């Protein structure tokens, strides 16, 4: 299994911006989630973020909230999610990051939780309601067991906080591009460019930008501003949930490819530009 750090290392060597799609486990069902993981892996994803459905997703907007509610109503349990990941992860090129709120981790116990997700083949962890001050108890055991815990930086974070978060964050630094919850938005705030530059001066760790990115043009914009990774969530979750499971999987396949194209520098174009 590739670690998140190694994955970024090889992307950097190829000067590529990573594409990180997000989907909610168990929506519409875990079979479809398994299929979706494989399809995303083949359609250009470099890392895949898998959301564990939670009853009170404070950091999520309406699309991911609704997906989590549907998944829980279908009876999706953490053990089922991890069993599915265990069977699918060996077939994937992309490492899997689990996106989960803190209470399910605390409830299982930090050590047992980490061991179980490691055994299932998970490479990283994002916990949106665990800020730096509360993260110490998770960071150390996760490092020992080999799970990258990626911390989040927000537009409201001070320079001191950004520096401290960048120092502790593993795998990459997750820059939240909006003051707000997850969800699709019409534009990307221009201050993201400044934030990227600011963080870049404080750390050489890769920076992934997420929350609010839903179109190829926005992804390209963020890549052009210097992001090492673009994270797209609600736009995938919504497409996967529309129509039959097969239609959903087909839709995210196409969407993933179009995002990948948008953030990949096109050698053919460069070549023809030089010819001119």
């Amino acid at each position, binding site marked *: 299994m590739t670690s998140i750090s190694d994955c970024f290392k090889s992307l950097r060597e190829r000067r590529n911006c990573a594409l990180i799609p997000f989907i909610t486990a168990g929506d519409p069902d875990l079979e479809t989630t398994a299929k979706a993981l494989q399809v995303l892996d083949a359609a250009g994803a470099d890392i895949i973020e898998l959301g564990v459905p939670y009853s009170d997703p404070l*950091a999520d907007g309406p699309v991911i909230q609704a997906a989590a509610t549907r998944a829980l109503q279908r009876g999706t349990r953490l053990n089922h999610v991890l069993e599915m990941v265990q069977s699918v992860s060996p077939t994937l090129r992309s490492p899997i990051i689990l996106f989960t709120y803190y209470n399910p981790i605390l409830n299982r116990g930090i050590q047992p939780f980490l061991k179980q997700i490691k055994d299932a083949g998970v490479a990283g962890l994002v916990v*949106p309601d665990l*800020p730096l001050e509360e993260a110490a108890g998770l960071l150390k055991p996760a490092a020992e067991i080999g799970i990258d815990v990626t911390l*989040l930086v927000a537009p409201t*974070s001070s320079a001191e*906080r950004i520096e401290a978060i960048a120092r502790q964050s593993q795998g990459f630094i997750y820059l939240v591009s909006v*003051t707000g919850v997850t969800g699709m938005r019409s534009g990307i705030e221009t201050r993201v460019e400044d934030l990227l530059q600011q963080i870049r001066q404080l750390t050489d760790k890769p920076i992934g930008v997420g929350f609010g990115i839903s179109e190829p043009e926005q992804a390209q914009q963020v890549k052009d501003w210097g992001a090492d990774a673009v994270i797209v969530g609600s736009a995938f979750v919504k497409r996967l949930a529309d129509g039959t499971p097969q239609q959903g999987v087909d839709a995210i396949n196409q969407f993933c490819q179009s995002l990948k194209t948008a953030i990949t520098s096109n050698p053919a174009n460069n070549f023809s530009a030089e010819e001119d």
Partner: protein
Amino acid sequence: MTLTPLSSNSQPADNQASTQTPDILGRFGQFGGKYVPETLMPALTELEAAYQQYRNDPGFQAELQQLLRDYVGRATPLYFAERLTAHYARPDGTGAQIYLKREDLNHTGAHKINNALAQVLLAKRMNKQRIIAETGAGQHGVATATVCARFGLDCVIYMGVQDMERQSLNVFRMRLMGAEVRPVAAGTGTLKDATSEAIRDWVTNVETTHYILGSVAGPHPYPMIVRDFHAVIGQETRVQAMEKWGGLPDILLACVGGGSNAMGLFHEFVKESSVRLIGVEAAGEGVNTEKHAATLTMGRVGVLHGAMSYLLQDEDGQVIEAHSISAGLDYPGVGPEHSYLKESRRAEYYSVTDSDAVAALQRLAQLEGIIPALETAHAIAYLEFLCPQLSGSPRIVINCSGRGDKDVHTVAKFLENS
């Protein structure tokens, strides 16, 4: 009927066990903390700094004290409930002497305005022009709408759709005062879901908005701030007890949902080891059914709405939907300091059912001419179980935290169906 056994140790714990000041991370023992998205961390720091700056500021205190007196109507009376006392008297004439701390006589009809008023004065000093709040029973929403009208601030109240129906009177009051009431349909459409939605609003608008959280719950510094702004309840009680009988109360009794009225009464007396502190939770249809809100009685340690505390949750750590006839107690979490007081055995927590509470509401109405809120009625109901266990004539102070006008439809419906 309470299904909760009495604590084997009803003796107060020693004072060493009582940390009344949370540590730098906002913890009471293991409880509390700041489990929130990074976006909110600077706002919590800003709020804490503003609170530390103004809590003892003479200008802030002068404005607050004057408004508490002239606008809210403080001090509230400590009333000797003579006929309720007689109701529980033993044949030899001894028995609990029952006093009601009349928070129901505050402007807007509940204790909630103590905190809403003080927080709005803080918000003004932080230059926030927009106020948001969550509400369950609507009392905190009404209090917030009231102070926003008084100070000319934009006000958005999040309220679960189920609560909007059962507390429609309060919805109308909020709108009359110019607040926007936003229905929350997620989950069960109750206080938990309204709180989540208020937090999402705050994450989105944090730079212009102050969130007036209405209980001693949520991330630090809210449990401390809300408690301190309600501590006036206990402070007045101490003075009034001294005037009336020259001593301390023996037992303090209050209902606990998030736990703000209970903390407001308890805080002044936590260090007085002779004073028994008793919190009463909502057992709904019974703690052995799936329909209750008895978090401290039946929950396990978890994290909800930014704080570590007791929590009603399933095997996977998913939060369970609570149930209570009282919208203000219908919450699967509880303030972290209550978890701390429970674990350190300084306070005791029990629960009473919906029907216990309705019976107590009727009893107080008929014996004293006071219709309490359904929340408050839970504290009153516990007298049925407490009084037979007492010897002598201890003085009990019950926090009569709110008036029951808002609940008459709910009670009428309950009595029709029972």
